[in-house]
C-alpha cells in the first residue's frame, strides 16, 4: 500500500533553478492525476543565495508542511545549514547529491541513505547548454514513474520564450536524468482523477476577487502579497479593469475608497506593515459605507518581522485595529483552493453590506502552489437595494441597516460621503442621536445579515473540539485524524468568518463537547482571547498557540490534546 505522502526537497544555489524543477515535477505529477504541494524557501538574499523547492506529494488535498523529508536532492551544500530547521531528514530518508562533494557533518550525522550522482558532469555531457536542474528533474521524474515526454513538454512550455537551444538542452538533460537507474526505492502516494488545477493561494485570491467583480486595484508592493497584485495587473488588463500603483499604502487604501465611491468594485492586497498603515482609511470606508476589500497576506511580525515566512499574528489588528466603533468584516481562507471562495465571498459581502472586508490569508497558503480540484465559487443571492424615493437619503435608516448606494453619474442622487459622523442625508452632525443611530445602523447591517453555513467548516464528532481559523485548518484536520487513530474522537471547527463572529452558531457547533482547544500560529493566543472575549464557554478552553515561522505540526497538536485530556 502506498504511504499517504512523499516529501521531496530540492536544494541548490539561487539561480540553479531548483524552484523551476520543483514546479515542473509537480505539474507532471498532476498530469498523471497526482496531488501535491510546493513550498518555496529562499535565503534572505534578493538574488543568489540558497533556495529550496519543498514538495509534498499526497493522496488527498489536505496540504500541510512536511515534518520529515523522504528524499533530499542537493545540487550543492553551500549554505544548506540555512534550511536545517525546515528540511529534516531521518535514517529512512534518501539523499542524492553531487558526486565528489562531502556531506556537511550535521547531515552525515543523521544517518540517511546517500547516493552520489555526477549531476554536473551528466548535464554537461547531455548538451553544451545543459543545466543541472533539468537533469535533476529527469532523475526525480523517473523515480516517481513520470513520463519523460511529459516533463520535456512542460519544460518546453516554461521556456517557450527562450531560444530553441534552451529547450533542446532541457529535453536532453531531462532524458539523460530519466535514463539513470538509481537504487532509491520511493513509495509515492496513490494518484486520483487528473482533472485538476495548479495555482498558489495568492493567485486563487486574485481570481476570486476578479470573478466577484473587482475591476479596480490600487497596489503597493510588499512581501508576501506582491504576487497577488502582479497577477491581478495582467488579469485586470484582460477583463477591462485598472490597476494603479500607489506611492504608499496610505494612498492605496484611499485610492480604492475613491474607486469604490465611483461604483467600481475595488481591492488591494498587503501584509502586516501595510495593513497597519491602511487602518485609518479602512475606518473611513466603514464610516462612509464605501465597500472595499483588503487582502492581508500575513507574515511574521511585529514591525518588519520575518517578511518571507508565515504567521497568523495579524488577527488582532484585523479585528480591532480601527479607531472608534468601526464594525467591519474579517474573513480567512482555509486553504489554497478556498482562497477563491473566501475572497469572492468577502468581495460580495463588502459590496452588499457597504463596508470594509479584511481577508486574512498568509504566506504559507499565499505563496505555496498546489494541485487542487476545481475550486468552489461563491455566488451570493443578495436582496436588491431598495428603490430610491425622490428625496435621496444616502444613510437612510432601514430595517436591514443597508441603504441604497448611489454613485456619481446617477441622476439626482447627489450626496457627499463623509468620514465625519453624519445624519441620514449625509450632512455632518455631532448630535448624540445621529451618532447613536448611525453606529447602530452600521453594526446592525453586519449582525443581522444571514451568512449561511459558510462561517466555518465543521467536521467530526467527539468530546474534544479543535477550533482554529484560516490556514491552520489543514494541520488541525491532520491532527484530528491522528487523534482518531489513537482512539480520541474530535470535532474540528475551522472559522472562515471571524467578524462578525457567529457566536450562536459556534456555540451550537461546540454543543456536547467537553473541551475546546483553540489552535493558532501566533505567540499571544490572539484567537483564544478573542473567542473568550466574545462568548461564554461552558467547556474548559485550552490554548495551543505557536509562533511562526515553523508551520503548525499535526503531531504536536495531537500531543497537546493528549496532554490536556489526561
Amino acid at each position, binding site marked *: 500500500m502506498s504511504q499517504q505522502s512523499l516529501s521531496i526537497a530540492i536544494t541548490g544555489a539561487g539561480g540553479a533553478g531548483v524552484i523551476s524543477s520543483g514546479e515542473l515535477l509537480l505539474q507532471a505529477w498532476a498530469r498523471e492525476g497526482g496531488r501535491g504541494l510546493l513550498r518555496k524557501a529562499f535565503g534572505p538574499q534578493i538574488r543568489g543565495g540558497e533556495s529550496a523547492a519543498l514538495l509534498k506529494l499526497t493522496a488527498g488535498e489536505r496540504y500541510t508542511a512536511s515534518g520529515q523529508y523522504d528524499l533530499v536532492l542537493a545540487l550543492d551544500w553551500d549554505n544548506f545549514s540555512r534550511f536545517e530547521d525546515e528540511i529534516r531528514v531521518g535514517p529512512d530518508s534518501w539523499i542524492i547529491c553531487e558526486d565528489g562533494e562531502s556531506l556537511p557533518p550535521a547531515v552525515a550525522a543523521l544517518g540517511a541513505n546517500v547516493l552520489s550522482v555526477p549531476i554536473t558532469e551528466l548535464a554537461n555531457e547531455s548538451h553544451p547548454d545543459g543545466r543541472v536542474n533539468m537533469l535533476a528533474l529527469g532523475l526525480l521524474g523517473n523515480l516517481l514513474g513520470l513520463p519523460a515526454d511529459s516533463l520535456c513538454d512542460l519544460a518546453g512550455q516554461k521556456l517557450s520564450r527562450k531560444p530553441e537551444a534552451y529547450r533542446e538542452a532541457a529535453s536532453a538533460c531531462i532524458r539523460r536524468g530519466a535514463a539513470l537507474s538509481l537504487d532509491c526505492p520511493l513509495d509515492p502516494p496513490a494518484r486520483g482523477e487528473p482533472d485538476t488545477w495548479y495555482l498558489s493561494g495568492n493567485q486563487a485570491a486574485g481570481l476570486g476577487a476578479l470573478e466577484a467583480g473587482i475591476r479596480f486595484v490600487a497596489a503597493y508592493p510588499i512581501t508576501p502579497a506582491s504576487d497577488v497584485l502582479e497577477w491581478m495587473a495582467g488579469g485586470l488588463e484582460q477583463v477591462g479593469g*485598472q490597476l494603479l500603483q500607489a506611492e504608499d499604502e496610505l494612498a492605496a487604501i484611499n485610492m480604492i475608497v475613491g474607486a469604490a465611491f465611483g461604483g467600481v468594485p475595488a481591492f488591494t492586497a498587503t501584509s502586516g506593515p501595510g495593513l497597519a498603515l491602511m487602518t485609518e482609511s479602512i475606518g473611513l470606508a466603514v464610516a462612509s459605507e464605501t465597500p472595499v476589500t483588503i487582502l492581508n497576506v500575513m507574515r511574521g511580525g511585529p514591525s518588519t518581522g520575518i517578511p518571507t515566512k508565515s504567521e497568523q499574528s495579524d488577527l488582532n489588528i484585523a479585528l480591532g485595529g480601527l479607531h472608534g466603533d468601526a464594525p467591519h468584516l474579517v474573513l480567512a481562507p482555509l486553504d489554497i483552493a478556498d482562497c477563491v471562495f473566501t475572497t469572492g465571498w468577502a468581495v460580495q459581502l463588502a459590496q452588499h453590506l457597504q463596508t470594509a472586508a479584511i481577508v486574512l490569508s498568509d504566506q504559507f497558503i499565499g505563496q505555496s502552489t498546489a494541485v487542487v480540484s476545481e475550486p468552489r465559487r461563491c455566488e451570493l443571492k443578495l436582496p436588491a437595494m431598495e428603490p430610491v424615493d425622490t428625496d435621496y437619503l444616502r444613510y437612510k435608516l432601514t430595517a436591514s441597516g443597508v441603504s441604497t448606494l448611489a454613485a456619481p453619474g446617477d441622476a439626482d442622487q447627489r450626496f457627499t460621503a463623509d468620514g465625519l459622523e453624519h445624519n441620514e442625508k449625509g450632512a455632518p452632525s455631532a448630535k448624540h442621536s445621529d451618532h447613536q443611530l448611525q453606529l447602530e445602523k452600521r453594526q446592525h447591517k453586519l449582525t443581522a445579515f444571514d451568512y449561511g453555513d459558510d462561517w466555518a467548516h465543521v467536521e467530526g464528532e467527539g468530546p474534544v473540539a479543535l477550533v482554529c481559523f484560516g490556514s491552520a485548518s489543514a494541520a488541525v484536520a491532520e491532527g484530528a485524524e491522528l487523534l482518531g487513530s489513537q482512539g480520541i474522537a474530535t470535532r474540528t471547527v475551522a472559522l472562515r468568518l471571524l467578524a462578525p463572529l457567529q457566536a450562536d452558531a459556534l456555540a451550537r457547533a461546540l454543543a456536547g463537547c467537553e473541551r475546546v482547544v483553540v489552535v493558532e500560529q501566533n505567540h499571544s493566543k490572539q484567537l483564544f482571547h478573542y473567542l473568550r472575549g466574545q462568548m461564554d464557554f461552558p467547556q474548559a478552553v485550552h490554548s495551543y498557540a505557536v509562533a511562526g515561522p515553523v508551520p503548525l505540526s499535526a503531531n504536536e497538536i495531537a500531543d497537546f490534546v493528549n496532554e490536556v485530556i489526561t
Partner: protein
Amino acid sequence: MTNAIKLKAKDYKSGLKPIWCPGCGHFSVFNAITKAMAALQISKDDTVMVSGIGCSSRLPAYVDSYGFHGVHGRGLAIAQGLKVARPDLTVIAMGGDGDGFSIGGNHFIHACRRNVNMTYIAMDNEVYGMTKGQASPTTPMDWSNSKLTPHGPGVRPFKPAALALASGAPWIARAYSGNPNQMAQLIAQAIEHPGFSFLHVLSQCITFCPEQTDWKAIVNEREEPAVADADEAAKLFLHEDGFQTGLLFEQARATWPPEGMAPVADDALQNLATAFRV
C-alpha cells in the same frame, strides 16, 4: 447632460451653511468654484468634489454635486482612484496647505508626477485653522503666533509651485481670494486642462493670521502668458515672492492612464480561470 435651463452659480450651491469664520478666504474660493461650474454649465451629477480634512476641506458638502470628504491628507489619493476608475467624471480635489503639503505631501508630489486628468485646488492660508492656529509647511519662519512654536516655526516654508514643477505638474496657476473673478476663470481653465491642473490659492485666514489682510497690497497679476519652458519656470518659482497670480506654467504632457485600452474578450474571465487547469 442636457439642461433645459441655464444654471447660475447659486444653483451649484447645496444650501448647507459653511462653518467658516466671517472674512475667511474660503468663501471666495467656494463662490469662484460655483461660478466656474456655471461658466462651463458643468453637469452636477457627473462632477465630484473630493477633499481631506481641514477648514477648506469642508467645501465639497457646500457644492451641489457628488462629494467625498475623506481623511486628513488623503483627498488626492481618493480623487485619483475615483478618476482612474471613472474617467467619465469631472474630479476636483481640494484642501488646505497642511492637508496638501504636510500630511498629504507624498500624495501631492506623486499626483503631480502621475498626471491624472483632474484638478487640485490648494487653499493656502499658511496655517492650521481647524486645530486653532498652528504653523503649516507654508508658514513664514518667524511667525510666532502659535503656542506650539512660540518662537516661530524656524523652518523655511515650502514653495508649492516650485514643488509642483519639480514633481512634474504640467499646469500650475495661482489665485487670490481677494480676486474671485480671476480665480473663477482659472478654475474653469483648470477643469478644462487635459491633465493634472494645480491651482494654488492664497486664501486668507483673518482669524489666526490677521496680517494676511496685507496680501491685498502685495498680490500682483501676471500679465505675460504662462511659461512653457521648465527651466524658465524653475527660475520663476524659486525666485518669485509667491504673490504673482494667473496661469504661471503650462506644458503638454501625456496623462495617466494612457488612453485606449485593449478590447475585452467576452470570455476573458473564463480564460483567466482556465489558465490554472493542469
